[in-house]
């Protein structure tokens, strides 16, 4: 079983579009959307939720006003400035370190489980899908990503699947690292722009740090063909395989608007080209 992660660094380069293509193309797979705070893959794969679960992200402090003497001990130790002037817990700032609970002299601070979101096991016409919705302004997206991947792996083993397709989050931070650990291959979707290339370089650094094999697709390559060829050459020279280039296409945009994976939406030449390109990663 092979775990394939689709990432980009920069947002909006076409991760979800490409993950959708893989979902249509690959047989025997489990699909995971690891962009837990702004998930989009469900918009084109239309999962039917079979099981849903609450995600406990950590602890949150709660001050019992009956017991609190306003002594200020909690406020003094809180490194996250999460205790307000009138001794309430600012839920947006509390990182659940629980130290206030230990220092409170009158045991007025209770620790509660923090329900930070929900996650789902669903079926789609392309196979099983594991996805989530992190609550607004919640923490611990990395922990949720890890949870999704554990479940996907269990399902994949149960179904003797050949692939796990992981639609990754943008950036290089905690959810990206959680999505990347232990995958067999990362496919970075980039675009020929100073920002796209800058962000790709940070993704390359990250894959090196985790010792993960990386292949690159240059999307919307014709928005700056010269930059695309130069980038492809540089990548090949540094030992990173560029598996192909995809042109900027109104048709792809139309498939997103129609909420369909491109390879389902169209059977045109571009779709054939994408199929050919995607087959290179298997």
């Amino acid at each position, binding site marked *: 079983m092979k775990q394939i992660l689709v990432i980009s660094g920069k947002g909006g*380069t076409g991760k979800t579009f490409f993950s959708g293509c893989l979902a249509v193309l690959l047989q025997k797979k489990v699909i995971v959307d690891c962009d837990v705070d702004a998930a989009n893959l469900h918009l084109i794969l239309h999962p039917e939720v079979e099981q849903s679960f609450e995600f406990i992200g950590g602890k949150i402090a709660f001050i019992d006003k009956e017991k609190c003497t306003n002594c200020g001990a909690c406020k003094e130790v809180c490194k996250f400035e999460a205790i307000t002037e009138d001794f309430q817990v600012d839920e947006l700032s509390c990182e659940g370190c629980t*130290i206030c609970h230990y220092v409170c002299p009158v045991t007025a601070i209770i620790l509660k489980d923090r329900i930070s979101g929900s996650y789902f096991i669903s079926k789609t016409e392309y196979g099983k899908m594991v996805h989530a919705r992190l609550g607004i302004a919640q923490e611990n997206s990395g922990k949720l990503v890890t949870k999704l991947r554990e479940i996907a792996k269990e399902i994949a083993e149960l179904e003797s699947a050949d692939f796990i397709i992981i639609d990754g989050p943008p950036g290089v931070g905690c959810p990206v690292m959680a999505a990347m650990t232990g995958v067999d291959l990362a496919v970075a979707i980039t675009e020929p722009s100073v920002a796209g290339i800058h962000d790709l370089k940070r993704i390359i*650094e990250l894959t090196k740090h985790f010792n993960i094999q990386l292949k690159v697709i240059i999307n919307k390559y014709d928005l700056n063909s010269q930059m695309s060829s130069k980038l492809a050459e540089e990548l090949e020279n540094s030992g990173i395989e560029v598996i192909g280039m995809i042109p900027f296409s109104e048709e792809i945009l139309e498939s997103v608007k129609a909420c369909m994976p491109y390879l389902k939406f169209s059977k045109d030449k571009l779709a054939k080209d994408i199929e050919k390109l995607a087959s290179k990663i298997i």
Partner: protein
Amino acid sequence: MIVSVASGKGGTGKTTVAVSLALSIENSQIIDCDVEEPNVSLFLNPEIEEKIEVKTLIPEVDKNKCNYCGFCSQICAYNALSVIKLDSHGDVLLFPHLCHGCGGCILLCPENGMKTGYRTVGEITRGYKENIEFIEGRINISEVLAPKVIEEAKKLIKPDKIAIIDAPPGTSCPAVAAIKGSNFCLLVTEPTPFGLHDLELAYEVTKAVKVPVAVIINKSENDKIIEDFCEKNNIPVLMKIPFQRKIAELYSKGVPLVSAIPEYKEKFQSLINFIKGIEK
């Protein structure tokens, strides 16, 4: 006044809007809070004056005092400490990437056997592009404390300036850290189901942090789905930037929108005037 530029979805044009705003108005400061992938400098090419390391607190074990009781490991909510006790000695293992720097272990060690140490997790860069003050937060690769780097960058905001914050995508802690405390937030979106879905989420974030919003539609063409959402929620749509191949090509090279098409300068100026009007 602090105006943040956010979106939920990545790649909708946050940096384009933030940079163009900063270039269109007097007395501006731009703070790149997309610390995982900061891009403002690529469009602004500022002269760098200063780099400041962002440090986070970590515990350091005093081997002379520690008796390996394991209390620090029990109370650490992030599982960042592990204590091994053998007959006469032991070891305390710190997993620095898991540590949030709460300082609890240092404060609560029964033997007073932990000292405060520091670890670098990122860097703040400060500079100028003509009259625009440039500030960038950048987290080191493989580090996770993005909110810490964002907060340090935001400490350099000057109240007498118009501070423009380029926020990261998403709706979790880094986005919240960037938007929190703003006087106004501009949500940049695009007229696709992805754009709408993530706009809805980003709008929820701004409600949670109680920041008033307006929307900018980038790659504008048939905007009905976005306009319907905005109308339903009473969100003003302040600007539309149509998709033009020329804009995309110039963006690709790192040319700011207002430098490529100077007519936009006036539009961004009236945008700021509109926000100032609401603020008053």
